[in-house]
């Protein structure tokens, strides 16, 4: 219960900030799409990612015989770039993107690929399995947001599961059969991007205007930056998270 109180205190503060941002943000929704690009880096030594013991499922441990599996809560590239950071426009007031792309969340070698899947509200995504072992795919949103938890099995060779989410939320996903399997669905409103192995990203299809770009990382939280997008001239927003 105490947690819930803390939660609501932070919430009210954030809601105020968000509302403020919404009022201040001036959007010029004109034709001609711009983009926002940049790099997300980690300042400091990359934290040690623990190895994963998959011995309780021989299929899984065999898949990692030659490349031991590690946790993916902080994935840093050779140049210090942070992977799996989701970038989105937190003061987006346009309509949802009419994106027809269907992001894929695969269960491969008893890990989630990708570990973090960003998507738009209402956008269809697909959960697939490449494994010869049964998984259960179990997202755990807070039902109070309008996103309802579900739990489906995917035995070897199972058909993909197609779903979408109704509301903006960061949703943890897990497999109860393989307790080390943890991933995220980051549901946002409007255009988004996820950083690659070098920490680079590009948010495409951004109408010219002033925006607040938010970077979300599962361990380090969020950072924001103000940018101005113009047609034909990409706006830049770089972020640096401090290693803890």
């Amino acid at each position, binding site marked *: *219960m105490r947690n*819930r*109180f803390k*939660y*609501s205190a*932070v*919430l*009210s503060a*954030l*809601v105020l900030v*968000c509302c403020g941002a919404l009022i201040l943000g001036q959007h010029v929704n004109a034709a001609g799409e711009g983009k926002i690009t940049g790099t997300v880096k980690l300042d400091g030594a990359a934290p040690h990612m623990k190895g994963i013991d998959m011995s*309780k*499922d*021989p299929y899984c441990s065999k898949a990692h015989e030659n490349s031991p599996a590690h946790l993916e809560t902080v994935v840093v590239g050779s140049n210090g770039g942070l992977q799996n950071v989701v970038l989105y426009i*937190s003061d987006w007031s346009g309509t949802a993107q009419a994106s027809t792309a269907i992001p894929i969340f695969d269960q491969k070698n008893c890990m989630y690929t990708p570990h973090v899947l960003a998507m738009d509200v209402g956008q269809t995504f697909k959960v697939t399995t490449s494994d*010869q*072992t*049964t998984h*259960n*795919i*179990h997202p*755990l949103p*807070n*039902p*109070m*947001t*309008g996103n*309802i*938890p*579900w*739990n*489906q*099995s995917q*035995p*070897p*060779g*199972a*058909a993909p*599961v197609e779903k979408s989410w109704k*509301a*903006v*939320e*960061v949703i943890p996903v897990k497999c*109860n*059969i*393989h*307790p080390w399997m943890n991933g995220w669905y*980051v*549901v*946002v*409103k409007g255009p988004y991007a996820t950083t690659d192995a070098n920490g680079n990203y590009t948010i495409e299809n951004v109408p010219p205007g002033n925006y607040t770009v*938010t970077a*979300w*990382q*599962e*361990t*380090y*939280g*969020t950072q924001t930056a103000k940018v101005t997008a113009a047609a034909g001239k990409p706006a830049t927003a770089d972020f640096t998270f401090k290693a*803890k």
Partner: protein
Amino acid sequence: MRTRLQTWSLLMGATAVLALPMTSSAQLTPADFEPRMNMESHIGNITGHAKDAKADYRRYCVSCHGELGDGNGESFPWVDPKPRDFQLGIFKCRSTPTGTLPTDQDLFDTIARGLDRSNMPQWSTFTKQERADLVAWVKHFSPRWVNEKPGTPITIPPEPEVTAERIKAGRDVYARVQCWKCHGVLGAANGPSAATLQDDLGRPIAAFNFTEGSRPKCGDADRDIYRIFMTGLDGTPMPSFADNIKPDEAWDMVFYLRTLMRQNSKAKEMAKQLGLKPVDPNAPAGQQ
């Protein structure tokens, strides 16, 4: 502490993403549920009214389920499994697909049946009208019953005759979809993943043990067992297998599960005569 900081920043991250704040149930008071006091339930030709269940709920249910229906009643600390949080609208025993609301009939049946191996007794002492009223009362705690409709119940074909072929086919399904990962090859709830199972709130939870003679939580008729693995038990690790087990195969599975149970049944007798062996977890896919 690092963990604390991490949790904190994670929380910040999560909340910043949320344009609309989650409703925090801690601040809710009974007045918040007042607008939904006209909630109804429909069980056959009986109509339940939430307002008529107020007294029964206060007398019989509130100590576990709490005044706010959040499962945080006075007895909460001493009860395991924990009482449901009715504000979330998530229920184990449903005839509807995973991620959907149960039907009024599902909730009505749960009240009468009770939940085996929990502190929820069989409330057969209530009249049907009282139970229907209580169903409406349970529903008035969650806005989901205003915003969503219950899911469409799954179709259960008529039960076929149990045969040796069906039992063997059921064993193949048990092997193929790997029920044994949690429930064990003999159904003794000792599969490799059994020890680490957690419910949606992160509390340890046990897989159903077929061998010890207890009743499945959501009913022990053949149709109940069929329904349990096809819809899954929301809020728990038990997923829905509706997409991966065909209706006819599902009946085979019911018969095979009967052979694992301690209770005598026709299927169990037939399996004994067949000398049916448990599934081999190391056999390649499709070769039992």
